[in-house]
């Protein structure tokens, strides 16, 4: 498994394990920023994305040869959103206790609108307008 480096402080890195779904930001000037950058071996945080020149935001599955990417065409009035929803559930009173799930979420808000795409653990997709 490829290990990516994340520098929280200069000269000291921690290892970032690849996610099942990763983001890629493509800019209007033809450059890009990828959460897991194969060319540099670096991990990037979402806040590093320059939304001022963002053209499109892509969510790509680790098995990109099997699962097509999802693309959000960006508009200047949009504020980009990306986060993971993590849930821990306890079956209280049972001997089976905890279950954890992770949902990959992204979308935008602006102009009084908000739209979130939720990628569920089985990779089915929910689109939620708020």
């Amino acid at each position: 498994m490829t290990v990516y480096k994340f520098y929280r402080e200069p000269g000291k890195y921690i290892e970032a394990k690849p996610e099942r779904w990763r983001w890629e930001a493509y800019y209007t000037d033809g450059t890009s920023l990828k959460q897991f950058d194969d060319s540099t071996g670096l991990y990037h945080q979402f806040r590093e994305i320059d939304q001022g020149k963002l053209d499109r935001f892509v969510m790509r599955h680790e098995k990109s040869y099997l699962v097509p990417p999802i693309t959000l065409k960006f508009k200047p009035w949009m504020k980009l959103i990306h986060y993971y929803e993590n849930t821990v559930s306890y079956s209280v009173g049972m001997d089976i206790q905890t279950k954890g799930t992770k949902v990959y979420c992204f979308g935008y808000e602006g102009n009084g609108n908000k739209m979130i795409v939720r990628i569920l653990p089985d990779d089915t997709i929910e689109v939620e307008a708020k």
Partner: protein
Amino acid sequence: MAADVNIVESNGAGEDLTDITSGNLNMGSGDYANITSSATLPITADANGYEKWVRFKVEDISTSDHIKTMKVWMSTDGLTGSDVMMIYATESGYASKAYAQPTADDSTVATYFIAESEPTGANVAGGAGSLTATLGDGEYSNYIPIQLQVDAGTAEGGSFTISFKYEEVA
């Protein structure tokens, strides 16, 4: 790797801390974490379980930036008869609670009926009682006191699901 966020339970006068993320949240007639089964420390009819005081804890923020929008709720499928699950978790008018040794008396802090579906927004706060607060490395949410109050007509304990959810910005 993503952030390591745990659910931590507090017990005793001296506040012993137990990471119950991979444990359990069984209610019982004693002030203990990880009560091993429903047959251990059963709650009798017309009595209360000991309060549970739990929190989210960011054990290691790792490569992520922060967590936010913390929620707790319960499934509707499991409480027996007129049993009620009380909690302090609310989407409005939130005020943080200071830890106190768990009690089996009627809780004076877990005074809301627990939400029976996922809340729209955060109902657990961080910082000084802020529902919009974010948590970073090593930080805890505010306390979430929970108490099961068993009805006089209940003959045998039920089972149900309590869920804790947070958003992680990576």
